[in-house]
């Protein structure tokens, strides 16, 4: 899963974190089994200390079982875009089409956009992420 935010007033949005945007990262996850594997191992490091009854750990192991039994193909790619602009389907439509092309039949793709009424730069503070 990949979540990005943008307050760029032009469409489609430019995504600014790191060296690649959300779509590029989803493309990599779609096409590269090494990238998918790295992300799942990263998730593994997030859950290994949790108790066996923790819901996140239960879900992780269930997903891992599906992934391994499908020879590393059964995955769901989820992209979430958060914007503080006027909603428009243009933000996602072309990208969804491009990503859906040649998608492995065992993979699932879901892109979502959330349009919020506050300035995105203020969001971390509003959500008390930044003290």
């Amino acid at each position, binding site marked *: 899963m990949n979540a990005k935010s943008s307050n760029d007033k032009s469409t489609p949005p430019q995504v600014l*974190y790191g060296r690649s945007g959300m779509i590029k990262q989803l493309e990599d996850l779609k096409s590269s089994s090494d990238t998918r*594997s*790295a992300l799942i191992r990263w998730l593994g490091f997030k859950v290994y200390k949790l108790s066996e009854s923790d819901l996140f750990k239960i879900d992780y192991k269930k997903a*891992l079982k599906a992934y391994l039994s499908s020879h590393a193909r059964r995955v769901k790619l989820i992209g979430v875009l958060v914007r503080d602009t006027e909603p428009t389907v243009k933000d996602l439509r072309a990208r969804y089409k491009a990503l859906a092309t040649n998608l492995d039949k065992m993979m699932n793709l879901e892109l979502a956009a959330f349009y919020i009424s506050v300035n995105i730069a203020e969001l971390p503070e509003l959500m008390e992420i930044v003290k």
Partner: protein
Amino acid sequence: MNIDGDIIDHEVLNLLDESLIKKAFDTINLKKVSKAFYGDESLTESEIEAVARAIEGLEFSIIDLWQYSFETGEENLDSKTQFQKLCFKCFKLMNALPIPEDKFGKIKHILKLTTYAYLGEKWEDMRRFLIERQEVWSIDQTENNDWDDRMFSTIYLSILYLVRKSSWQDLDESVKLINSLRSEQSKYENQYLNEVEAQYKRGAALELASLYHLAKAVDLVSEYMLQGSPRDVLEQISFHFDKSIAYAQNVRIVELDLLLRMLHSTFKKMIFNSIRR
């Protein structure tokens, strides 16, 4: 599950296709015989793929057992033994794979190999590899002017000298390399950040911050190996790895994040193995 002659029963391991694991070990064991008789140990593409998939499966199990890597309590010793055995098996499989030719692929491969050697209690095998095959792991830094690349490559070399430690000179070399980064920072850093496209500046700066903390952790381990100080080296490297991982997470460099977690445990193991404790 039977893993190359060892019966290991673990939940995540049991999700794997046993025939896939068997095939991978059969392949590499056969190649050893083939090498002894014919001098040929090369793997076909499909064999490489099979071995890589087996490694991936074992790694999921290893990560699930990661919390037991430094376990000392009696009640979890079985889990610790499983962890060590799986790390060794992973090392054995990885060691049979061809080393990637591209620089970053090679660096990641060899650092991972180092981790599994240490955590699988086979560090002397890794050391022998570094002594005997310098032409394989060395990299050319002379024309490397990109600061992030230069830092990462220098840190890699410094770690390998630390692992090889065939003489005090290797430890000195490890320290020198990290010190060279301090003197080069003023020469390369500004130029690098100025050349990065505006949209990637934040990510580039956070990546550098992550690498600076990794360099400091390597420096601390080198100093400890040379001088036996600082006495609180474990706490100090944990501080720097926590920072380094936090920056890598912030910029979402998953592979760096994974590498840092593995190196943190590798360094802890190096320190525990050190005669000074």
